[in-house]
């Protein structure tokens, strides 16, 4: 009985408002998961309040309370964010104010306003998340809002609700061609439309500008994609797949960092500084946003993408932090040799913290004395790591004070950052310039497509040692650890690619899981390529490709606009032709045409004949409006009636009608 009462209430509630509330609730949900409780909770309460009002359980608050609630809403936003502007705070304010608007949504006009703002909320969601899921989800929200709009504009008592949903679906489907035209042809503006302020809270996953024990191993379980690469040339050998990222030179005993994050750009002139051999790898990187400025490339980059520069340490640094998906083409030589013999400033690469690693320094001295040159010393240290019982593990023991000594002489269990750190320390202690390089190593081919996936779990740290006559040489100390001392099978496959497959073959469930994950990644990649990252360049490429036969090889924005207008006109023309159906007008009754002329003349005077209004009714109404013309109006109507509806219409009668209409001038 209670239930039927509730159903009754649902049935009697205004349908457009229920659709609207459902749409808003779903549109808010992604924001709710992101916004602080202080903003989220009042919004949810207000939303529920409105729902209870629609079901006639609760009244809406009076004006004074609404004012108070508005103040509380602004205050809550202010407290939660410390500001009212910016991406997060702005969205918070929008959500809470929209919910407050629900408290005074009385007139039809208000409903229209709220539906419009609902669409705006949908846009704001994409400021945070542009994934394919969110796109589909928002499509659902938009469908609900359009349903609210159709319910809003139709007589509710006679339309079943599924018909509204159906109508909304039809409207959206009809809008699809125009949406596609606008999407592909509307000129893209280079760079983001507006720069989104960094809110601090939006830290991306990925490498950071410093490295301390544990900072890379925390990424080892993170399977999210760091970037995807499409190779135009054959894949480089596994042992050459080092994706170079931040270079760290300064060590404080625990943490490696870069003392000059904004170092001046060096001018990239390929031949003077290093010698390359072999053919370059050509590839395109699609980098997921990581909120930092590094762009990753294979060693050694032979070009730099636009809007970026190369640092002294051969890092590619973008002019702006990577806050959205970027795509850049690269050329790298995996076989290279630095030709320059001396480095401008050797001191930063020999820096060591004053009071740490006493034992390590002694070890370095000892080992150095045994050999004659630095290159031999490097090999000695590598041999030392290989021979001593060093283990590669994902769960290294926590090293508190003096991590270098503790690692080298006590625990001897570590992740790549421990090895890189210790190795560079030993080099520097013996007077060999060295630095830590972080980045990604390896990656895997998506077997279902033609691109390469590099994940966060591929994050790696290695080193570079400067040798006279040779320049910087890449040394990966973790690579010398024998397979039996690597604890994790996955790590084994990554560190020693030639050993991959030696472990147990994965069972079929895992195989299917991997297949699915590759399929999903391919879909994501396509989405990124065609939707999220459809930027100026890609638009150019796509349109040039499409219209190559028409003689466009480089389309400028004016031509795009022209194409857009032409396309829209075409779509509209098709719709117009369908609606007007001129081929059906050909056999139209001349009496009808004359009468329509007559109606047109009256409608110019504001006397509009409704399409459902019969000629007699219209004549009656028109004569009331223009009593002085009543005789003419009735005459024309009578002639028309006789010609169109009466038996035996005559040619003479038709001519009289046409003459009467011609003489009828309002």
């Amino acid at each position, binding site marked *: 009985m209670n239930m039927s009462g509730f159903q009754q209430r649902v*049935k*009697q509630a205004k349908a457009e408002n229920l659709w609207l509330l459902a749409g808003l609730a779903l549109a808010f949900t992604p924001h709710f998961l992101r916004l602080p409780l202080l903003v989220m909770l009042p919004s949810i309460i207000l939303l529920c309040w409105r729902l209870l009002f629609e079901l006639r359980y609760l009244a809406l608050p009076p004006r004074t309370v609404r004012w108070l609630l508005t103040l509380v809403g602004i205050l809550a936003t202010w407290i939660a964010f410390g500001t009212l502007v910016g991406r997060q705070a702005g969205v918070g304010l929008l959500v809470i104010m929209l919910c407050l608007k629900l408290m005074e949504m009385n007139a039809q006009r208000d409903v229209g306003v709220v539906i419009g703002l609902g669409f705006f909320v949908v846009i704001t969601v994409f400021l945070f998340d542009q994934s394919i899921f969110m796109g589909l989800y928002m499509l659902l929200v938009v469908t609900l809002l359009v349903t609210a709009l159709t319910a809003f504009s139709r*007589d509710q*008592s*006679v*339309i*079943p609700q*599924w*018909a509204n949903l*159906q109508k909304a679906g039809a409207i959206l489907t009809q809008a699809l061609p125009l949406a596609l035209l606008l999407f592909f042809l509307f000129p893209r503006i280079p760079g983001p439309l507006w720069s989104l302020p960094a809110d601090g809270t939006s830290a991306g996953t990925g490498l950071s500008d410093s490295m301390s024990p544990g900072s890379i191993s925390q990424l080892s379980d993170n399977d999210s994609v760091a970037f995807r690469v499409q190779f135009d040339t054959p894949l480089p050998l596994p042992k050459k797949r080092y994706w170079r990222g931040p270079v760290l030179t300064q060590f404080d005993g625990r943490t490696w960092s870069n003392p000059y994050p904004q170092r001046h750009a060096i001018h990239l002139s390929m031949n003077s500084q290093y010698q390359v051999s072999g053919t370059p790898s050509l590839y395109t990187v699609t980098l997921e946003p990581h909120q930092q400025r590094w762009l990753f490339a294979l060693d050694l980059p032979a070009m730099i993408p636009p809007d970026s520069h190369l640092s002294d340490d051969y890092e590619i640094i973008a002019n702006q932090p990577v806050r959205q998906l970027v795509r850049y083409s690269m050329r790298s030589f995996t076989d290279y040799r630095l030709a320059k013999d001396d480095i401008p400033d050797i001191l930063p690469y020999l820096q060591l913290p004053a009071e740490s690693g006493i034992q390590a320094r002694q070890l370095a001295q000892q080992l150095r004395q045994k050999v004659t040159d630095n290159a031999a010393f490097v090999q000695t240290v590598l041999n030392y790591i290989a021979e001593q019982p060093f283990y590669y593990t994902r769960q290294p023991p926590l090293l508190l004070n003096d991590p270098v000594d503790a690692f080298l002489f006590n625990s001897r269990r570590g992740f790549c950052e421990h090895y890189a750190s210790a190795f560079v320390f030993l080099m520097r202690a013996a007077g060999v310039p060295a630095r830590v390089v972080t980045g990604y190593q390896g990656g895997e081919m998506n077997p279902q497509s033609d691109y390469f996936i590099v994940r966060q779990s591929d994050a790696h740290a290695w080193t570079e040692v400067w040798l006279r006559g040779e320049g910087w040489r890449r040394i990966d100390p973790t690579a010398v650890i024998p397979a039996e001392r690597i604890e994790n099978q996955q790590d084994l496959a990554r560190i020693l690619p030639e050993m991959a497959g030696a472990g147990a073959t994965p069972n079929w469930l895992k195989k299917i899981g991997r297949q699915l994950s590759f399929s999903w990644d391919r879909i994501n990649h396509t989405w990124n390529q065609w939707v999220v990252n459809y930027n100026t360049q890609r638009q150019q490429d796509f349109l040039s490709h499409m219209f190559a036969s028409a003689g466009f090889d480089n389309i400028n924005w004016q031509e795009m606009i022209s194409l857009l207008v032409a396309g829209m006109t075409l779509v509209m023309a098709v719709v117009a032709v369908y609606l007007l159906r001129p081929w059906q007008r050909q056999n139209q*009754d001349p009496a*009808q045409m004359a009468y329509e002329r007559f109606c047109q003349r009256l409608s110019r005077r504001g006397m509009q004949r409704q*399409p*459902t*209004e*019969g*000629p*007699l*009714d219209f004549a009656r109404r028109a004569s009331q409006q223009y009593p002085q013309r009543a005789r003419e109006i009735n005459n024309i109507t009578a002639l028309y*009636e006789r010609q*169109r*509806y*009466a*038996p035996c219409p005559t040619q003479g009668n038709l001519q009289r009608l046409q003459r009467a209409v011609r003489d009828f001038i309002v």
Partner: protein
Amino acid sequence: MQNNESTQRLDAIVAHASQVVLGKQHEIRLALTCLLARGHLLIEDLPGVGKTTLAHVLAQTLGLQYQRIQFTSDLLPADILGVSIFDKSEQGFHFHPGPVFAQLILADEVNRATPKAQSALLEAMEEGQVTIEGKTRPLPDPFFVIATQNPTYQIGTFPLPESQLDRFLMRISLGYPDAEAERALLTGDDRREILKQHRACIQPGQLAELQQAASNVHVADALLDYVQALLDISRRSPQFTHGLSPRAGLALLRSAKAWALMAGRDHAMPEDVQTVMPHVVSHRLQAVAESSQGDKTLLTLLQDVAIP
């Protein structure tokens, strides 16, 4: 003009009947239209608004033989059709015709009887003849049934199924009289007395002429286009469970023609269709939305179709 003559005669009938049923000229015209179109009429309204009086006065005015059948839950088909009784003097069965053998039958509160009794009448309506004990007996001509029914929300009713509702050309309701008519009703003489003195205003046989004139009303192609568009939209509209049948289309056209004759035209106009449409189709369409008013739904149907 023949048509003018018919129209004058019809106007006289309406005026004559309006003396008894006060303030219901439009409904009288609709009832007469139904009769001219050789259809049967269903009046749905509350008790006491003059349904019976309307039926009676129509019979009187048109000079038709009148029979009234009060439908009750224990009414049997034999009570309507008649029964054969053994006659001792003639040593054989003698048929005693039931009340159905009359020209104008008022089936009062038809939805109070069981479906069995209802169907006895409804079959007579459809066939124009009844078969009793294996012998087919023709019904008089004209044969016109006015059935009244209480709104279905009143208890103790057997609602007519859709297929049987379809046998009625039109469904009308009378509604309360306006203040002026009500005052005249309250101050005037007893309706029964007036009815007794009421005389027919047409000769026998003239009704058939009028019916013939109604069926001779011209229907232009343009009007057929309009009727077809209306039928089409009723079939495509999401508001109804199913669309209008071809029979409903024929009914609509017949009614529009009769209405045109009443209005003094020899051809039907879109306005005629619009006027009769709600009464012709409202009992043949089932709205999907439960709470909706049938008439309001129909109005949107009319509003959705432009006159071609």
